[in-house]
C-alpha cells in the first residue's frame, strides 16, 4: 500500500530551483533510498516532507491526507519523523533530555519509557553518556542521539538524511543494522545516503535524484548492478 506520495513537487530557493516536478512514492514497510549527487535536492526533499520548506507547486499525500502545506509540528504528529542533515542536537541539553524531546508529541508516558529502554539497549554508548550535554558529544555520538531521538517519537515513516556522515566504519554498519531492524519492526524508512553501497544493501527500492527530479527508479538490488549507478555513485 502506498503510504507517501509526492507528486510533481517544485521547490524554489530565491533563484535556485532545487526541486523540479519531483515525484516518487513510498510503500508501507519499505526502505526507500534516494541517491544523488551533492546538491541534487535530496535534503530539500526531506525538508519539504517535514514541512521546513514548502513546495511552490505539486503535492505531498500521506495516507490519503494532504500534507503539502502542513506545519512541521502537525507532520510530526502525523508520524513522519525527520533526522536532519547535521543532526541538530540540542547542545546544552543532556543526552537524556534530547531523547525525551523526541517524545514531545507522544502522550503515552509508558510508551516513551519502553522506547527509551530500547534505544539505550540498541546504543549502549548513549546509556553511558546519558547525563552529558549533547553539544559535547563526538560527531558519531551525536548521530546516534539524533536517530535515537527520532525513534522515541514512534515514527511511522522515518526520514533519514545522511545518517552515516562522519561515522566510523563499524558504526556505519551498526546504523544500517539499526535501520534494518527498525524497519523490520514495522517502521517505513526513507533514506538519503552518500554511502550508496551501504544504503543499497538494506534498501528495497531506490530513486536517483538529479537536479531536482527523479530520473531513475527501481529495486535496490537491480540498481546496484546498473553500470550508470556504479560509475557515478559506487566508484568503479
Amino acid at each position, binding site marked *: 500500500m502506498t503510504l507517501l506520495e509526492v507528486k510533481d513537487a517544485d521547490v524554489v530557493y*530565491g533563484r*535556485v530551483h532545487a526541486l523540479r516536478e519531483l515525484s516518487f512514492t513510498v510503500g508501507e514497510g519499505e526502505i526507500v533510498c534516494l541517491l544523488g549527487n551533492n*546538491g541534487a535536492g535530496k535534503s530539500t526533499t526531506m525538508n519539504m516532507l517535514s514541512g521546513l520548506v514548502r513546495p511552490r507547486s505539486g503535492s505531498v499525500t500521506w495516507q490519503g491526507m494532504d500534507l503539502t502545506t502542513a506545519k512541521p509540528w502537525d507532520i510530526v504528529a502525523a508520524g513522519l519523523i525527520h533526522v536532519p542533515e547535521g543532526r541538530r542536537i540540542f547542545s546544552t541539553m543532556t543526552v537524556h533530555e534530547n531523547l525525551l524531546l523526541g517524545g514531545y508529541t507522544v502522550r503515552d508516558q509508558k510508551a516513551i519509557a519502553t522506547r527509551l529502554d530500547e534505544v539505550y539497549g540498541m546504543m549502549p554508548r548513549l546509556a553511558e553518556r546519558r547525563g552529558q550535554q549533547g553539544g559535547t558529544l563526538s560527531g558519531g555520538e551525536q548521530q546516534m542521539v539524533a536517530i535515537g531521538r527520532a525513534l522515541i517519537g514512534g515514527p511511522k515513516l522515518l526520514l533519514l538524511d545522511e545518517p552515516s556522515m562522519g561515522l566510523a566504519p563499524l558504526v556505519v554498519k551498526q546504523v544500517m543494522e539499526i535501520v534494518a531492524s527498525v524497519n523490520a519492526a514495522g517502521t517505513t524508512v526513507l533514506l538519503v545516503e552518500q554511502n550508496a553501497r551501504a544504503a543499497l544493501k538494506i534498501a528495497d527500492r531506490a530513486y536517483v535524484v538529479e*537536479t531536482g527530479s527523479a530520473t531513475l527508479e527501481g529495486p535496490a538490488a537491480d540498481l546496484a548492478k546498473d553500470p550508470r549507478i556504479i560509475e557515478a555513485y559506487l566508484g568503479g
Partner: protein
Amino acid sequence: MARDLDHALKHVPLRAPAPLYERPQPPKGVFSSQRGFMRALGLVAVLLVAVLPFMDASRYTMSIATSALIYVMLCMGLNVVVGYAGLLDLGYIAFFAVGAYISGIFTTVLGWPMWAALIATIVACITAGIIIGAPTLRLRSDYLAIVTLGFGEIIRITANNLKITGGPSGIHGIPTWSFGPWGFDDGFNLFGIDFPERVVFYYFVAAVVIVVGVIGAGRLAKGRLGRAWKAVRDDEDAAEAMGINTYIAKISAYIIGAVWAGMAGQLMATHLSAISPNSFQFLYSALILMAVVLGGMGSTPGVIIGALFVSLAPELLRDFAEWRYLIFGVLLVVVMLFRPSGLWPATAVLPWLRRTRPTPPAFTEATAVPASVMESVDGTPTTEAHEGDRA
C-alpha cells in the same frame, strides 16, 4: 612584476604558486561597477555637504546639520565596533562623553587651545577604550552588552557627581575651534558672499573632520585590520585559526570606536558650547545603536543614512511636539519590519549589477547545499530561504 610585490609580504616559508590564469577584472566605470558607483555617490554626498550652506544658512539648518554630521561621525565609530567587529556596545555614548568632557575641561578649566585638547581627547579615549575593553572583551556578546551599558552609566554618573565636570549642570562656555586668526566669531566672507554666522564656519569645520572620519573608517574596514574584525564577527574560533589574535582585533576595534566617538564628542562640545551629563544617558547609546542597525550594520552608506535618520527624524517631527516620540517609535518598528537588514545593508548590490547564479548543472559537476545553509531555514516554513539571491 609579480615579484615586485614580494616585500609586501613578510617572509613566509610557503608561497602560493603563481595564479594559473588572470581572473577577469571587475569592470570599471561609474555605473558598471559597485565600487565606482559608490565612489561617485560619496563624491556627490561630499558636494551636498559643501553646498548646503549656500542653499540655506539659517542658524537652525546649520545647527541641526552640524549635529547630524556629528552623529554620522559617532555612528561610524560605533559601526566599527558593532558592524565590523560584531561587539554589541550599549554604552557607546560613554566615549562620546569622555571626548566632550575632556575637551570641555581642558579648554575651559585649563584654558588649553582646542587643538591641544584634541590630543588630550584622543589619548583619553584610547585609555578609556583599553580600560573598559581589556578585561571585558573576552565576554560573549550579551555579557559584553551589559558591561558596556554599565560602563556608560558609570561615566555619566561620575560626571554628574564630580566637581571638575561641573556636576549636574555640566560645563559651559566651551570655546569654538579657531585656526590662528580665523575664529569667525563675527562671521566671514567667502567669494563675496557674506556668512554672518559662526555656526556656518563651525559647520565647515565639523564637515571636514567628519568627511575625513568617514573615509578613514571606511578605509580601515577594507584593509588587513578590517578583515580581521569581520572574521572575528563571523567566527571567532576560525579567526584564531587564521592567525588573527582575536583579542587584539577586538580591542583595536574598540579603541578606534572610542577615538571616533571622542572626536565626535569634542565636536559636539564645541558645537553646543555647553555639555551636561543629561546628554549622555543610556537612551542616547540606544539611539546611536539604532542608527547603525537601522541603516545597515557594516555599511558606510547605510550608517550615514541611519545617523541622519535618527538625528533628523525627531527634528523633522518637531511640529508634532508630544507626538513625536510616539511617531518615532512606530516608524522604527515599521522600517525594521520592511527592511530587516537595514535601509542599506552591507551586502546590498546595486540592482542593475545583480547577476543570476546559473542553476547547478546536472550529474557530474553538481553543486551542493552546505549543511550550514540550512541554518537559515528556521521558524516558520517558507518557500524562500533568505539571501539565496545574493549574487
